Every structure is written in structure tokens, then in C-alpha cells.
């Protein structure tokens, strides 16, 4: 109910945005200069602002969503492609950098190249339908995100971002500083996403589909407080990220088993993460269509305290198909492999992720050993997705409508499909499958999902997404609709991003 005013505000904003002329960066105190500047930009269209950072190429801010795509390091997800990148100052009449309060697709405070502060707003509203009862998981209408923030740079060497979710008891999302020592060596500290998974590191406002793949949602760590060293090598062919974090991402609180007298609660261990992405054809001459091809791998290790802290499987609409009901204890290891290719108006990408939770001392034991160690709990899955922009816009750098609605066109229209699967079980375990929290062999379950989607980029601020989703569960008894193995769902998302 509390989302209603925000929804109304979003609707108003959407209407205004749809009717607004294509915005330009203009000092608010100089209409004349703005007109001239607009003329210049018409000749050399500005890339989407996410790429319009004032630091040099290769900076974290280059990708715009510093906490998400910014650290993804994906050529394809970067919004500021070099070819289209247009420095505000360079395009401005006279060649001077703007100072003061400017409008450059969003409000921004700038002092030449020395300082920049963009004011950000992300709003998403979803209308959902499903055979699954949605009442327990938020109902048929949901305000997905209501985020505000600032983001910018200082002296072209320091980038920062502060982002918060309105109305969330734990509001802070990305809060970090990123210092550029060299293109090959940057140091980032604060709260941001643990570098793992292409899709997890992609901003929710840039996803091809309304929801991330189940395997990403379930297995990829999210944000945490930590430090990261990252950079690009070999003419940006290789992007590396190595970091240490307090934990393995914000997740549900650990559920300790009842402590024995005198026993101290176990602590969640630090997480150590590494990720490498290679674009083998980026620096090569020729192979133009392959320049955007990237492959990568990542690993995150941490220690999970004793308790019912296993990774859990949730359906698209938060129905548990593999609940948090197994005792685990010890190392959690995540490994992931990814590829991403965005030739012209098409894109194809996929990931494979596997995570294991150790269960040291969680068994019931036998004649030889008390509190035996159980076979690790495993979760694994993959997805592959493809999209095509019917209106011809390129996907590399993000789809930007060439002819926005009310500006001579209807915007950009993209269609796509994704197949994904997420499985939980205990490979190699013996004994009867059981629902016991200390079972050797857990009863496996799998969610296989087909998503068909269409994205309408109304203009640079507004996007409408529609997804039809078909889920199939291996164990119908633990489907969100008990006894029913498969069902359809649908979602429509309205999005406004400054």
C-alpha cells in the first residue's frame, strides 16, 4: 500500500518523460549556449551518459553502473563506447567544460573536469500474474526499485557512488570510492557487488529480462563491504578483479543451531573473490563482429558458520523449491563461467555457476565417528539467452533508441528468449533421499525456466518490459504450487531511470 504514492509519481514521471524532448547537457544559466550545444550534439550524438565519465577510458565509471556493470568490465555492457563517447566539454561550444548545475540526461553538478556529481534516480514498477499465489510474495503489483543516489568523479582519479533504496530498512546499495592509479591498477573500497557473475554485475535497469536468471539470483553473492583491485591489461583484452570482502554478500542472517553452554556463535567468514574476463578479439584487426566477444571465469570462497545456512532455491516469484533447511558448516565455494557476445543488433550470453556448501561435522555419525562430515551440498545451473533489436539499434553499449517516441519514431523494440536451469542436490551421497536437515542425500530439486521477452525502449529514460515465464520443477511436491510441476507466469515492468 505504501508503494501507491510512488507508483503514481512514477506514472507521472513516465508520461512527462515520454513527452519530453531529447535532453541535452546544458548549463541552466545559458539558454543560448544550450541551443548551440544541442546543435553540436545533433551532429555527434552523445553516448548514453553512463559512459560519459570524465576520467579516462578503462575507469570503473566507464561502464556507468559502477557497482554493477561498472565492475563487470564487459565491453558489451559498457555504456560508454569509445567510438560514441563524447566528452561534454569537447562538444560544448568553445571547448570549455561546463561548470555549475547542468542537465545532461540527468541533473548534474560540475566544475570543469575536476569534479562531477550526477544525481540518479531509478524507478521500477511491476505488474505480475501467475498461477502461483502471489499474495504471500508481494501481490500482483510491486514497486521493484525506488533508488536515489549520486555518482561522479574527482580530479579524474577518484570515482564515487552513493545509492540508496527508498523505504528499505537497510537502504544502502553501492557506497564506494574507486581510485585509479593506472588503467591496469585501480583500487576500490566500500560497499559494492562481489565480482562474480556477468548478470549479477549488470544493473537491474540494464537487464535483458525483467528478472535475473534463477541460478544468478540463488548462487551469486550480492553486495558486501570490502576492497577490490581491478584493472585492464593488454589493450583491454583482459580485465581482472581481485578482492576481499567482509562476508559473501548480503544474504539472510545466519541461522545458528542452538548453542551449547559456553559455546560462542560462529562467524561468517571473509569472502575472497577473483574474476577474469577476456575479450580475445578486442585488440585484433579484423573480426569486427567478434570484437565484442568475451569469456570469463570467477571464483568466490568463504566460510559458512554452522547452522541451517544452505543456499536455497527460489522460483521466479520467491516460492521455495529448495528451502533453507539443511545444516551446513565450513567452506562455501562458488565457481562461474560466462560468455557474452553482442554482434550488431543481436546479443547472446550465458553462464554456468556451481556452488558447494561443506557440511563438516553435521552428520549423525556411526560406529567409527561421532558427528560425521556429510557430502557437500551442491547447487548448480546455467542459462543461455539471446536477443534481437527489431528496430536495428546495436546492443553493444546498451540499446539506445535512434528514434525515440514523439521524436520521429516509436523507440527501439527488442525481443529475446532465455532458457535456464537451477539444480540442488548432494551428488555422490549415499543413503535414502530425505528431508532431514542432517541427511546425507538431500532430495534433489530443479527449476527449469523458459522466458520470452520484449523490451520497448521508449526513450533514453523510459523502458517497458514484458516477460512470459514458464517454470518446471523436478519435484512437484516442492513446487510453489504443491503437486503441480509446471506453470506460467507473466510480468510487465515500467522503468524510469535518470
Amino acid at each position, binding site marked *: 500500500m505504501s508503494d501507491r504514492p510512488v507508483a503514481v509519481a512514477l506514472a507521472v514521471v513516465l508520461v512527462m518523460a515520454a513527452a519530453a524532448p531529447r535532453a541535452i547537457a546544458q548549463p541552466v544559466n545559458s539558454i543560448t549556449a544550450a541551443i548551440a550545444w544541442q546543435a553540436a550534439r545533433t551532429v555527434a550524438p552523445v553516448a548514453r551518459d553512463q559512459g560519459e565519465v570524465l576520467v579516462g577510458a578503462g575507469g570503473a565509471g566507464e561502464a556507468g553502473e559502477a557497482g554493477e556493470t561498472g565492475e563487470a568490465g564487459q565491453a558489451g555492457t559498457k555504456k560508454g563506447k569509445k567510438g560514441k563517447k563524447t566528452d561534454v566539454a569537447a562538444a560544448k561550444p568553445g571547448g570549455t567544460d561546463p561548470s555549475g548545475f547542468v542537465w545532461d540526461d540527468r541533473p548534474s553538478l560540475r566544475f570543469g573536469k575536476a569534479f562531477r556529481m550526477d544525481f540518479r534516480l531509478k524507478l521500477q514498477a511491476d505488474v505480475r500474474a501467475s498461477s502461483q499465489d502471489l499474495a504471500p510474495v508481494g501481490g500482483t503489483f510491486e514497486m521493484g526499485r525506488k533508488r536515489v543516489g549520486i555518482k561522479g568523479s574527482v580530479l579524474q582519479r577518484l570515482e564515487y557512488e552513493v545509492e540508496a533504496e527508498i523505504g528499505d530498512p537497510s537502504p544502502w546499495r553501492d557506497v564506494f570510492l574507486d581510485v585509479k592509479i593506472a588503467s591496469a591498477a585501480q583500487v576500490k573500497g566500500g560497499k559494492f557487488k562481489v565480482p562474480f557473475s556477468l548478470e549479477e554485475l549488470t544493473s537491474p535497469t540494464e537487464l535483458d529480462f525483467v528478472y535475473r536468471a534463477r541460478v544468478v539470483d540463488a548462487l551469486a553473492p550480492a553486495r558486501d563491504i570490502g576492497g577490490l583491485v581491478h584493472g585492464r591489461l593488454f589493450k583491454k583484452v583482459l580485465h581482472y578483479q581481485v578482492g576481499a570482502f567482509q562476508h559473501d554478500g548480503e544474504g539472510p542472517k545466519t541461522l545458528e543451531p542452538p548453542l551449547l553452554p559456553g559455546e560462542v556463535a560462529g562467524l561468517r567468514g571473509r569472502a575472497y573473490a577473483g574474476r577474469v574476463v577476456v575479450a580475445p578479439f578486442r585488440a585484433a584487426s579484423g573480426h569486427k563482429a567478434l570484437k565484442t566477444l568475451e569469456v570469463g571465469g570467477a571464483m568466490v570462497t568463504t566460510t559458512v558458520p554452522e547452522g541451517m545456512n544452505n543456499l536455497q532455491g527460489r522460483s521466479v516469484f520467491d516460492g521455495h523449491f529448495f528451502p533453507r533447511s539443511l545444516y551446513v558448516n565450513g567452506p562455501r565455494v562458488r565457481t562461474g563461467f560466462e560468455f557474452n557476445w553482442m554482434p550488431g543488433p543481436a546479443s547472446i550470453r550465458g553462464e554456468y555457476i556451481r556452488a558447494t556448501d561443506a557440511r563438516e561435522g*553435521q552428520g549423525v555419525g556411526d560406529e567409527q565417528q561421532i558427528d560425521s562430515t556429510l557430502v557437500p551440498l551442491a547447487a548448480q545451473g546455467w542459462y543461455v539467452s539471446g536477443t534481437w533489436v527489431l528496430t536495428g539499434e546495436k546492443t553493444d553499449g546498451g540499446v539506445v533508441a535512434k528514434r525515440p517516441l514523439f521524436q520521429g519514431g516509436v523507440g527501439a523494440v527488442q525481443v529475446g528468449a532465455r532458457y535456464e536451469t537451477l539444480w540442488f542436490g548432494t551428488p555422490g551421497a549415499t*543413503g535414502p533421499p530425505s528431508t532431514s536437515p542432517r541427511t546425507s542425500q538431500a532430495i534433489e530439486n530443479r527449476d527449469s525456466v523458459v522466458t520470452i521477452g520484449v523490451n520497448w525502449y521508449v526513450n533514453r529514460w523510459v523502458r517497458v518490459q514484458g516477460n512470459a515465464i514458464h517454470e518446471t520443477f523436478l519435484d512437484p511436491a516442492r513446487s510453489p504450487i504443491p503437486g503441480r510441476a509446471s506453470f506460467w507466469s507473466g510480468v510487465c515492468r515500467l522503468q524510469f531511470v535518470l
Partner: protein
Amino acid sequence: MRLTGRLVMAALCACLAGAAASAGAQTSDDLFDDQVLQRIDVHVNTRDWYWLKAESASNTYYTADLKWRGQTVRNVGLRSRGSASRSAVKPGLRVDINRYVTGQTFLGLTSFVLDNLETDASCLREMLAMKLLRRMGVPAPREAFAALFVNNAFAGLYAVVESIDETAVDRLFGEHQGYLFEYQWTMVYNFEYLGAALEAYAPMFQPVNHKFDAPSTLYGPIEAMVRTINDAPDPDFATSVEPYLDLGAFVRMVAGQAFLAEQDGLLGNWGVNNFYFYRFQGTTRSRFIAWDADHAMTAVDYDLTAGHNESVLMRRVMQVPDLRAAYWAAVLEAAALADEAEEADAPGWLEREVVRFQAQIGPAVRADTLKPYSDEEFEQASAYQMTFARQRGAFVRCEVRRLGATNGVAAPCSVPVGSALRAK
């Protein structure tokens, strides 16, 4: 370990070795074979075992593996059980075989009970009482003594008791599709009519199966039975109640409990208690099933008419000549079974069973450091059961003669001078 302790453990091991040697047949009858001391091993995470004991009042289930005679059942559910017998030191246990594994059974059983023998220093009452009732043909659970080992350590002497569930009902009555209820003691109740509202009966009669059926289906026949017991005219009492209750079976069970001096049964000191109630499939007719007899055999001179006036049902049953005669005949039958000797002047059946069980469990009881009574108290209580076994039959026969011949006017029968009349 002191020498005495070592000797006790050695004797216990010898008993268990005898049990192991007899392994081979693998049926539930073997598990409940009281000719040997069973050995049951339970493996449970030490954290779970600690909290099962520490929170013994809770019914929280914990995972365990169960081993018996070389058979292992994994992922059974284990929880504390009992009412007055709940213990944080030596917990009574319920073992649910299919708690975590759908359809899993052990020797055809889906559950059983490990009775901690908490309230009986002799450890014999429950075992002997149920055995006599079964000999009388009264529906009662099978039982055997068992040495329980938890995580490879001796955890005490227990009785392994057959759960009264659909499996047991199938064994007892040849069907299990009917309605099975466990009686829960909530107040002193003697089958008084509580009105037409079914909510009055629901707390006492808790369904074991068909739990989600409509209250009218579950409790309607019970309300009708109690109403009929209270309201049926005297001449029509038996014919009116018979559609709801097998009165002949009721009389035999009550008679058996009377012989056994059961203070906490169908005619107990605190109202009706300790029974299951099964309503046959497609009918309104029901039968009682005996349960929990650890307050039996506590007084050689226990009154054979105890509770008759308090219980509406028993009071009215005894007003029906045929049923009254059946009652006294069943009491005498119980006495005869208890005193059945293999030859003249030889010990009766009940006495022989006491002797046999004492020998079977003695080492385990002495090795059981978790029992809530001393070895001396065990010896005294055990000795009293011998007295009961020897003297109860004669007392009962005397009382039946007295009550039958003089309608109870003559002085009560006596027991040999110097004998203990009451269990301590």
C-alpha cells in the same frame, strides 16, 4: 570403572550377545521378542542429542540413524516423549521411521517408542501388564526390553514399545482404514455427556489418522456414543450402546486392568486414561486399545470395583446381568492366566515372568547410571512385583467369591501377614 561395574557390563554384554546370536528372523515380532534383551543403537548429532534432553518438554524432532541386529535405518525422526515420564537425563523417545523419508519403514513399522521406564523402579509393570492383557486377547502393544546405545555409549535400559498406529491397528483388527484416536488426559472424565458441541470431545480424542476430516466425521460418533451411554434406558442400554462400542471387549479390558490393579487406566483414579480408541471402517462401532500401564501392579489388595461408580459407562455396564457376569468371569480368567502353573505347586506364569525378566534386565538396570532410582530401590521394587505375582491371584479369587456370594457385605479378603500390600 570399579570391579562391580565391570562385572555388570560384562553380564549386560553377555545378555546382548545372546540376543545377537538369535538374530536371523527380521520381523517386528523379533524386535518385540521379550525373550531376549534387545540392543538398539541410535546415532545422533551430539548437538541434537544435547538439545533433545535439555528441552525434553518439547516435541522437536531430530535426525538419527537407527541400528538393530545389523540393520540400519537412516534419517529417522527422534523426539522426546511422555507426560510425567519426560526426562532431561534419560529421555523417553519416539522414533518416527518415516518422518524424513516418505514411505520408509523398519520391519514394517513406521514408528515405535523407547519407554524410559522413568516411573517404575522395578521396570517390570508395563511389560508384565501388557503381556497379561495380550494373553487375555485385549488389544495392547507388543513390548520388549532394550539396551539403548546412543553414539556408541550405553544410554540405559528402555522398553521398546509398539506404536499404536495404522500398522498396529492392522495387526490387531485386520483393518486400518477406520478412525484411530489417542486419548489425551485433559481433565477427570468418566464418560459424562458433555453436550452436543463436538469441541468438547476434540481435545480428548486426538486423531491419529484422518486428521483433516470434518469434525462431524471425526467426533460425531463419539458424541453420539457418550450421549447414548448416558441417556439410554436401562433395559435398552446394551443394545443401544453396542452400535457404538464393543461392550464385551470393554468388559474384558476393564477386568484385565482390575486384576492388574491398574490405577491409571479406563477406571483410573484420575478418570479415564491411557488408551487408544479405534472406530471400525464404515461403522460407528469402536474398541479400546490399552496403553501405558506403568501404574499397574502397585497393590496386591487393589479393589476390583475401583472406579465402577465413578465411571458412567462401567456403572451402567455392571447393571446389565450378562455384562456383569462377563466382567467377573474375565477377572477370574486373568487370575487364572497369571497363576497358570506348568505343574502342581510350581510358580505361576506371572511369577515365572517376573523371575525371567529380573534376570534379563538386572545387569542392564545396574549398569544404567541414568535411571532415576538406586539399585537398592530397583531391588525392592522388583521384589514387590514378585509379591504381587504370587499373591494377587489368590486375593482376586477370594474377592470375587466374597463380592458374588455376599454382595460385598462380608469383610474384605486378606493377604498373608507380613506381605507388602503396596508398591513403594
